[in-house]
């Protein structure tokens, strides 16, 4: 019996530790400003709807904009990033050509370059061409993702049989057609995983938009929440807005995460052997 209880107990402790802050904010967001400081921590309050209403009315509804911006950055960025990674991974996996290893190593080396080295010069270069403080400044630098190229290459190696490509060539299909009609469809499960990880990474990014953007109408949720906190840290009347904002910023991701569970694989090669 104890052989079974101890491991299960440890895992459940881990689960409780991980769920606690999320369940706390779920409760805290239901409290009106007065209830937040007077009722006990885990007693639900009565203010959820008015909190949400107030949050969306805050500064003429800027929170709506932040949500829409985040969706645009994360959705658009992840889509483009997945496309570039899949096509590059396919080329690196299925063709032998001079420079193949050099290009791969160069791209992979990008994993090790810290974002900080890039952020300042990227900002300066963007401002020089007049693109700082635009949507492009946040979208473009996040398309290239070396680790996704690495994953796409592993996936393509395992998922696309060489014989299929050879057969296609014998039938007279061009390389573009082979890529778009044969390779990419075979890579879809791996691409979904890459898309999800990129979506979450961009959704969670703070540094890049924090540096690039000045106009709060273009902020994503992360930077918006930070400004809300910076403005409200000493104003307990804003606390319930901040907490409700934090809750609303994680709900979409948790929903995505729970519905797409089976695609959260970090070892893509396992998906290809089936």
């Amino acid at each position: 019996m104890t052989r079974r209880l101890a491991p299960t107990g440890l895992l459940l402790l881990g689960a409780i530790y991980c769920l606690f802050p999320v369940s706390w904010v779920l409760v805290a967001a239901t409290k009106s400003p007065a209830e937040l400081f007077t009722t006990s921590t885990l007693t639900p309050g009565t203010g959820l709807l008015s909190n949400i209403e107030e949050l969306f009315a805050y500064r003429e509804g800027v929170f709506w904009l932040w949500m829409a911006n985040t969706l645009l950055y994360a959705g658009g960025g992840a889509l483009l990033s997945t496309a570039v990674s899949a096509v590059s991974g396919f080329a690196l996996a299925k063709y032998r050509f001079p420079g193949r290893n050099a290009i791969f190593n160069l791209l992979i080396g990008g994993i090790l370059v810290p974002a900080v080295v890039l952020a300042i010069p990227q900002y300066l270069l963007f401002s020089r061409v007049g693109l700082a403080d635009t949507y492009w400044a946040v979208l473009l630098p996040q398309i290239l993702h070396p680790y996704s190229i690495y994953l796409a290459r592993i996936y393509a190696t395992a998922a696309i049989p060489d014989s299929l490509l050879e057969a296609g060539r014998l039938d007279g299909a061009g390389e573009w057609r082979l890529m778009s009609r044969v390779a990419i469809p075979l890579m879809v499960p791996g691409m979904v995983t890459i898309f999800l990880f990129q979506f979450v990474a961009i959704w969670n990014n703070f540094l890049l938009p924090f540096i690039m953007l000045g106009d709060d109408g273009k902020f994503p949720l992360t930077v918006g929440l930070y400004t809300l906190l910076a403005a409200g840290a000493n104003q307990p009347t804003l606390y319930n807005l901040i907490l409700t904002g934090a809750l609303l910023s994680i709900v979409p991701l948790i929903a995505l995460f729970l519905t797409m569970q089976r695609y959260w694989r970090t070892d893509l090669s396992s998906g290809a052997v089936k």
Partner: protein
Amino acid sequence: MNRRVKAAPYLFLTPAIVLFTLFLAVPIGYTVYLSMRRVKVSGLGLGKGARQEIFVGLDNLAAAVTDGELWAGWLRVLGYGALVLVVMLGLALLFALLLDSAHVRLARFSRIAIFLPYAVPGVAATLLWGFLYLPSLSPFGLGFLSASAVTFSMANIAVWGGVGFNMLVLYTTLRAIPRELYEAARIDGATETQIALRVKIPILVPAIILTTVFSVIATIQVFTEPTTLRPLTNAISSTWSPLMKVYRDAFVTGDLYSAAATSIVIAAVSLVLSFGFLRVVRGHAFGEES
């Protein structure tokens, strides 16, 4: 192979190479260029030509390496990072092994629950914990945001946010191991604990190294959490971590040149540490099939 087939891979790689050049190579080159320059103000700094950019070679780098404020930041991040790495990766390994063992119930629920914080942005995670630490709201009592405790409180946020992702990396690696391997060990009389220590952990080493490298890189660049926590406590200075100092130099005090030099020092430290780890497992973590 005909010419079209030969050209195809280069065409397919063009977008990645163009993006690499524009958003990686050029910015890196520009950082190096900036780090070797400085504005020289002549006279009162008024009029045309009074502010001149001059070449100063490695002066800025030398200044960054010997900067006491930056050193203090490195030390803080070192303590914080050691704490995060040991606790986070230790817990991730423990949970992955527990999930993979045959004797555990509610495994699916625990796996999902522990992975859940991955879906919470760093800013939101810091906000949640920050409010939980706040004396007026905290259900735990006081003192989480005091100068002596704030490093631990911040490490807790990082552990909470990172343990699930690392657990999943290790767990998927474990699931890919053929079960027959364990059967053989069991027939030889090995207990579950022995199997975990003697069979599973050695197989996990490359994955552990990989997660360690990523965690070290992330820790050296810690920025979001201390920046977000700053409005709630005065125990965190504007130069608490090296990256926060870069941000302050570049965008608050406006000294791009020393900010560039400091970012190069941070990059060098990350690269040395990452390559150090990778050397240990040469051929395992990257490029095993090239």
